[in-house]
């Protein structure tokens, strides 16, 4: 009985850790930051449209400079990160975003792994529980008969082999 209670407690503990980790991952970096920091982080998520494999934060191309200026202007205007990213996606297409947006179809990129993780943990829990419930906790009479027969066959007195058997 104590063993079952301990097992349940372990599961509750693990679920608690999962919730805390997901919570920190979701809102952990949303603390107050300066507009410059926010702008730099945002520019790093937007591709420089005239460069190869460079973000608007890393490039000194005219387009990248214009993007950084526009980001700063829109931050000062009170727009959210998603609104600013949507502005660039509306002009250049979704491919200008180096990290997928959190809404619409592309939001699945974020949601699916989390959903898959939760579903697999639930599935694992159910399977383990079924195995636990299936396993007999005490030996039956038939088990004891089998064990007794085995012991009798393999004990030195019960062997028919005159040489004592074995290699």
């Amino acid at each position: 009985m104590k063993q079952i209670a301990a097992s349940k407690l372990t599961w509750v503990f693990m679920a608690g850790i999962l919730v805390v980790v997901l919570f920190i991952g979701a809102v952990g970096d949303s603390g107050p930051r300066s507009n410059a920091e926010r702008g730099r982080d945002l520019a790093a998520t937007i591709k420089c449209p005239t460069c190869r494999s460079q973000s608007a934060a890393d490039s000194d191309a005219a387009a990248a400079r214009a993007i950084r200026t526009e980001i700063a202007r829109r931050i000062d205007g009170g727009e959210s990160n998603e609104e600013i990213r949507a502005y660039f996606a509306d002009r250049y297409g979704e491919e200008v975003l180096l990290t997928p947006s959190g809404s619409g179809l592309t939001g699945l990129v974020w949601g699916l792994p989390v959903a898959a993780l939760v579903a697999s943990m639930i599935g694992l829990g159910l399977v383990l529980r079924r195995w636990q419930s299936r396993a007999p906790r005490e030996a039956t009479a038939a088990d004891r008969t089998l064990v007794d027969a085995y012991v009798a066959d393999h004990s030195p007195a019960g062997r028919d082999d005159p040489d004592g058997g074995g290699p």
Partner: protein
Amino acid sequence: MTDDEFDEAPRSTRRTALFVAAPVLVVMLAFVWILASSEPATDRQVSSPLLDEVAPELKGSTITGTGFDLDNRRGQFVVVNFFATWCTPCLREHPELVRFSERHAAAGDASVVSIVYDDQASDARQFFAEQGGDWPVVLDPDGRVALEYGVAGIPESFIVAPDGTVVAKVIGGVTANGLDQLMREVSAG
């Protein structure tokens, strides 16, 4: 080995080398000729989120100091062309824009407006003085207009229909005939 045999071996090797090298040389020359004589890719229409949308605002000062507002061009086709004087394909397409502009000047059914992309006003003035073209050339010092149009490289042209919507985005240069064809297609619906 006799002296004749000694001479024969290098001669046959030379002949084999000639038979191998000659076709290779011919193929290489043909390849160079094709590359040198082929026309650059022009009138390449590409997708853009702006297609079928109202053209972004285009208002600003020109290189001659006058004002320009795209809204005042409603009722005619407008070729919004992004260019720079340091861009070779822009230099190559410029005579085509001049031809297109002159062809439609009398009818007034289409016009051109150029946007200076990452370039100096003085260089643009000199460019137009040397290459011709008397349409408005709008300055975009902070690149905001290019951003509004989603410009990813020059030359890029956006064809704005008489109702103000963007009907085509052309990259790599335009031709006068290509633009006329496009206008006919749009007008035909």
